[in-house]
C-alpha cells in the first residue's frame, strides 16, 4: 500500500515547492532518496517562473540542474533494483497492519483473485493467498480454460473450515478454505482458432 505524503518547504518567501514521496522508506531513508525526490519537485503543475527555477537550483545544492530523459529514468529505476538488505527491516506490526489480510476484514462475501495450483479430476485446488487453499468444482462452461496456473475469481465464504462437533471441547479443522468460483480472469490455456 503506497502512502503519499506531501511536505511543503518555503524558500525565501516564494510559493511552496511540493515534494511527493513514494513510500515510508523514502522519508526514513538515505541520501540518494532525497536527491531523487528533489528532482521531482513541483508536482502542483503550476508554471514555473524564472526566479523559482533559480531558487530550485539553490535549494537542491547537490544537483545543479533538474534531471530529464535518460537521467531521470535511470535514477528512478536504480531505486527499484536496490538490494533488499540495503532497506531498513520493516517491523512485523507495520507489515501486518498494511497487509491484505487486515484490509479484507470479514472474509464472508469478499471477492478475491486466486491461482489454480492443482487439478484432480473435476476438482480445482485454488490458492488465493490465505493460509489454506480452497477446492472448487470445475464448471461445465469454458471447461478448457481451467488449467493449472490459470487465474480465477472467487467469492470467499470462510478462510478455514473448522467447527466444533457435539460434545467436543476443541474444534476439528479440515485444513481447507471455502469459496465459490465466480469466473476466470486469465487462462493459461491457448485457444486454437
Amino acid at each position: 500500500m503506497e502512502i503519499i505524503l506531501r511536505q511543503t518547504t518555503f524558500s525565501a518567501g516564494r510559493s511552496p515547492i511540493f515534494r511527493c514521496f513514494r513510500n515510508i522508506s523514502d522519508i526514513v531513508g538515505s541520501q540518494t532518496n532525497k536527491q531523487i525526490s528533489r528532482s521531482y519537485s513541483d508536482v502542483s503543475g503550476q508554471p514555473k517562473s524564472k526566479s523559482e527555477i533559480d531558487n530550485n537550483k539553490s535549494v537542491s545544492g547537490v544537483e545543479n540542474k533538474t534531471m530529464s530523459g535518460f537521467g531521470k529514468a535511470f535514477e528512478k529505476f536504480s531505486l527499484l533494483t536496490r538490494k533488499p538488505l540495503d532497506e531498513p527491516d520493516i517491523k512485523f506490526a507495520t507489515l501486518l497492519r498494511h497487509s491484505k489480510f487486515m484490509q479484507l476484514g470479514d472474509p464472508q462475501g469478499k471477492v478475491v483473485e486466486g491461482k489454480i495450483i492443482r487439478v484432480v479430476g473435476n476438482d480445482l485446488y485454488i490458492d488465493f493467498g490465505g493460509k489454506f487453499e480452497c477446492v472448487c468444482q470445475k464448471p461445465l462452461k469454458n471447461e478448457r480454460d481451467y488449467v493449472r496456473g490459470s487465474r480465477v475469481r472467487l467469492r470467499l465464504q470462510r478462510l478455514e473450515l473448522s467447527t466444533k462437533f457435539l460434545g467436543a471441547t476443541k474444534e476439528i479443522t479440515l485444513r481447507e478454505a471455502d469459496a465459490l468460483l465466480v469466473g476466470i480472469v486469465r487462462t493459461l490455456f491457448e485457444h486454437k482458432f
Partner: protein
Amino acid sequence: MIRTIANRFKWNAARYFTQTCSINSDASLCQNAASLKVDQLADIKESELKEISDPLKFPDYFGVRKLFRIKDLFDARIHYGHKDGTLDPNMKPYIFGSRLGHLIFDLDKTAEMLQDALNFTAHIAYRGGIILFVSHCPQHTLTVENAAKQAGEYAHAREWDFHIFTNSEKVYNGVTRLPDLVILLSTLNPQMQEHTAVKDAAKMCIPTIGIVDSNSNPNLITYPIPGNDDSPAAVQLYCNLFRDAILLGKSKKPMEVY
C-alpha cells in the same frame, strides 16, 4: 589453548628457518612463498585463533541471522495460525492476536526462536551429526525429501513406524546410530494427533526442532518454532532455511573431529 600456542611456535620456527637460507633456487623460491604465507599466519591476532578453536564461544558463529528477514517470513505466510477454537493453551505466549477468530503469530518471537534453532542446526552439522527431517503431511513430502537430499542429510516423510527409535536394534537387525537432531516440519500427523517422533525423540534424548502451529503442543520439543505449518510456501521456506543452515555448518571444517 595449549594447542594454539604450540602451533604458533611451529609457525615462528618455520619462518626463522626460511630466513636463514636465502639461496636463489627453485626449492628456496617455494620456501620463500611458504614463508610469506607463514608471515601472514603469524600476524593473525590471538582473538582470531580463539575463534578457530571454539565456535561455541560465539552467539552466531555461522551467521544464520543473515539467512532471513521478517519480511521473508511474512511473505511466506508464516504468521497465519488456525482459528480460536483449535488453539492449544500452551501456544498462547506466541500469539500476537486474533483477527475475527483467525490467530496471528508474533513474528518477532518466531524470528528469535528460528534463529536459535538454525544456529543449533548449523552447530550439529559442523560437528558431523546426523540430521533427520520428519514430516507426515503428504502434501509436503516432496519438499521435505528434496531439502534433505540437497543438505546431504536424511528425511522420513512417510508413515512413522512406532519402534524406529525405541526398538531400533530389532527393527533394523543390528546396532543402529540414531539421529543427533530431529527437525519436525509439522508436529501433527494427518489424524491431528501429536506425531510419535516428538515423544520418541524425547525418550531417546535426541534434541528436536519443531514447527508448532497454533493447534500443536510445544512442550516436548527442544527448540519449538511457532509458525504456520500448513501452507506450502511456509514449508518451502523452512526447508530452505534448514538446508542453508546445514550447508553453512558443513562449509566450515572443524579443526578436530569429535
